[in-house]
């Protein structure tokens, strides 16, 4: 049966068809839908969200030790979080087949950088598999698991946004059950004390050589014959762009690009005067070619390193023309906090109080946008708390009155707990604000240890942030109703006034979680409205000005009484919940 699947759906289907038994992940665009689709096969595959990618990886490793075919998935920067177990997993080898999916984000559609995770395969000395479309994603999962088991190595499976979120046709197949490998204690492999690790390194190098030999004839690498004068080497989504840019060329398409098939590449390049190396972001393939003495190539000299590629960019890069066309002058339509978002009150008040914030990754990062303009920094998952402590230590204790840390509930569980421990342990005065909207929101509503539900659909424990804070030594900790704007203001004022660290948990469920809580739109009394513009400073998409400058609320967007922040802040009492008729 032939269906259209996204790359993410194809990863899930590949796991199902090729006997995977355990799958772990932490949400992160563009990888999130992978596990959301694997769980559709929950009768055959156990799936879980872990608090972060490091734990997800370690759980996956445990499943591999347990003899199961296993997959863990993350976005590119997520692999940074999992890098510690990754770098040792390479030595351990053996046991169940192990696939690590990295979904990179060239062009940074929703990421803080566009790091090219192909280098992780080289760094960790594990094979790298790069499919180019959804059918290949599904098929290559099978190849990768076979390679993993035959050579005793985890495999890095690399996709990117335009593979994850693009749909293309896939022929579906049946699931093949793969029995669990037996568990036998083997400390020489699974305990990496130096004496063992030294031996294991030598084993890794031998394995790398064997894999390099395999790569030369690996069916995932193929030559597509075309014009004998024009040669192109490419991989991943770049290959598809290059096929459109050079429709008649002869291609060497690398599906397994590390260890590098140097012999195959050398034979290919001998056939042409010049070979174009088309790859998005880093010259990963180009470097391998040059390292192997193959120099009749043109790569990053012409192909841009920054941003994603497409067929036009490649064509223009080679021809020297610019066919990008002229963009019209149109106002931007930036993403902003949704109407009814509980985070709005915190940023509005921080702005009013003249307090800045070191912040973090999640929906609330959108608090950087004017008019809220409530954020000073955002670096990586969990950085907010450490950043705040660092600023205080550099500029003096009083600085903590002017700078707080703002972090989401999921991000806090991911990597904020250790930051909070640091504040208490190293005697900071930092105020930490957890914006608790009871879900991992930005990535599309996934559960985490604070929400009380597992991915498999079972009720479970909920982290108690106040008790946790107390246990870490932060005694001043309290909850605030995020929808009570005055309570939010008072809590922040009180918190920054104390000379000890404070945890504030601003509680308010994401407005999109339950639309049955929405009510009729609030209304503006134009007799009372003075056009002061204060409600507009909330930055709510429902509120705009009419031709006379007075506030108007769009009934298609406003969520009603559940929020009513605009009514609370209006100094003229001009906004109210409509009369029930």
């Amino acid at each position, binding site marked *: 049966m032939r269906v259209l699947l996204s790359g993410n759906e194809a990863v899930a289907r590949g796991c199902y068809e090729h006997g995977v038994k355990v799958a772990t992940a932490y949400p992160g665009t*563009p990888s999130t839908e992978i596990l959301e689709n694997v769980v559709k096969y929950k009768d055959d595959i156990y799936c879980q969200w872990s608090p972060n990618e490091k734990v997800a990886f370690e759980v996956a490793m445990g499943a591999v030790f347990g003899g199961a075919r296993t997959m863990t998935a993350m976005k590119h920067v997520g692999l940074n979080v999992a890098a510690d177990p990754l770098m040792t997993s390479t030595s351990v080898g053996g046991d169940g087949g192990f696939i690590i999916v990295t979904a990179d984000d060239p062009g940074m559609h929703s990421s803080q950088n566009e790091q090219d995770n192909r280098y992780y395969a080289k760094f960790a000395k594990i094979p790298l598999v790069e499919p180019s479309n959804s059918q290949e994603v599904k098929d290559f999962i099978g190849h990768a698991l076979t390679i993993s088991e035959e050579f005793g190595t985890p495999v890095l499976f690399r996709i990117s946004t335009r593979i994850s979120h693009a749909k*293309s046709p896939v022929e579906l197949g049946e699931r093949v059950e793969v029995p669990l490998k037996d568990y036998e204690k083997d400390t020489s492999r699974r305990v990496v004390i130096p004496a063992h690790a030294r031996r294991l390194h030598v084993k890794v190098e031998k394995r790398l050589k064997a894999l390099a030999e395999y790569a030369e004839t690996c069916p995932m690498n193929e030559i597509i014959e075309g014009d004998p004068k024009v040669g192109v080497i490419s991989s991943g989504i770049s290959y598809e762009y290059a096929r459109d840019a050079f429709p008649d060329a002869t291609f060497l398409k690398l599906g397994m690009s590390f260890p590098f098939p140097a012999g195959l590449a050398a034979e290919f390049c001998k056939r042409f005067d010049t070979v174009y190396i088309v790859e998005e972001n880093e010259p990963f393939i180009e470097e391998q070619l040059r390292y192997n003495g193959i120099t009749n190539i043109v790569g990053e000299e012409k192909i841009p390193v920054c941003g994603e590629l497409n067929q036009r960019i490649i064509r223009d890069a080679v021809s020297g023309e610019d066919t990008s066309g002229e963009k019209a002058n149109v106002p931007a339509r930036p993403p902003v906090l949704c109407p009814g978002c509980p985070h709005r009150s915190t940023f509005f008040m921080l702005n009013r109080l003249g307090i800045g914030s070191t912040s973090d990754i999640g929906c609330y990062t959108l608090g950087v946008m004017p008019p809220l303009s409530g954020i000073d920094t955002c670096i990586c998952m969990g950085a907010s708390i450490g950043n705040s402590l660092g600023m205080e230590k550099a500029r003096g204790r009083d600085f903590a009155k002017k700078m707080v840390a703002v972090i989401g509930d999921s991000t806090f569980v991911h990597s904020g707990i250790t930051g909070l421990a640091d504040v208490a342990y190293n005697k900071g005065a930092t105020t930490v604000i957890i914006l608790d909207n009871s879900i991992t929101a930005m990535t599309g509503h996934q559960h985490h240890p604070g929400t009380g539900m597992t991915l498999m659909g079972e009720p479970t424990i909920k982290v108690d942030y106040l008790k946790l804070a107390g246990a870490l030594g932060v005694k001043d900790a309290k909850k605030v109703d995020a929808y009570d704007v005055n309570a939010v203001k008072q809590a922040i004022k009180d918190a920054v006034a104390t000379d000890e660290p404070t945890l504030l948990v601003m509680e308010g469920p994401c407005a999109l979680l339950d639309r049955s809580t929405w009510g009729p739109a609030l209304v503006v009394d134009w007799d009372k409205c003075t056009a002061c513009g204060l409600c507009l400073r909330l930055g709510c998409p429902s509120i705009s000005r009419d031709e006379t400058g007075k506030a108007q609320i769009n009934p298609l967007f406003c969520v009603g009484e559940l929020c009513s922040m605009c009514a609370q802040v209006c100094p003229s009492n001009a906004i109210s919940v409509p009369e029930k008729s």
Partner: protein
Amino acid sequence: MAGKTTNVFIAGVGGQGILLASEILSDVALAKGLDVKKSEVHGMAQRGGSVVSHVRFGDEVHSPVITAGEADLLVSFEKMEALRWVQAVAPGGKVIVNTQEIVPSGQEVYPKDIDSQMDQRAPGTLRIDALALAKEAGHIRAVNVVMLGAISHFLDFSEDEWKAAIEARVPKKTIEINTKAFELGRRAVAS
């Protein structure tokens, strides 16, 4: 158009049903045995940002994205978004715009010169009031299927093929409204 890839560039604002429209269009092409690729950037649907979906179909499709000057059809569910992507239109390509205006967050008023800029850049732009047609069909949420009706006029798939794809994707109790929406959109552009 045999052999050549057809490129349909769909744009609009989050919440307008663009992704569902592009799913239905892709289904029609796939059912015809064509190679289909579609691509979008997720995450903006809830947050009022620009949404685009690229749908490409033909004998053999490689890139999943439509770049400048490649769109045979630029279809915008919102007035301003058509202008935002006008450079995507191929020479001889068609533009269909829903006249609905949605003020971007951060702007206080809707710009007045969108239509005149559009007529300069893409003369022959077809405009329809898909919101009014959706209301006529029975529900404002059917705007996206009205637009599919408009698109259908320019592609080589039969009405039955379209209707089968729509019925497979929309909730059962909305099939009648959506079928009417499709027909209204198709007729609006034909006239």
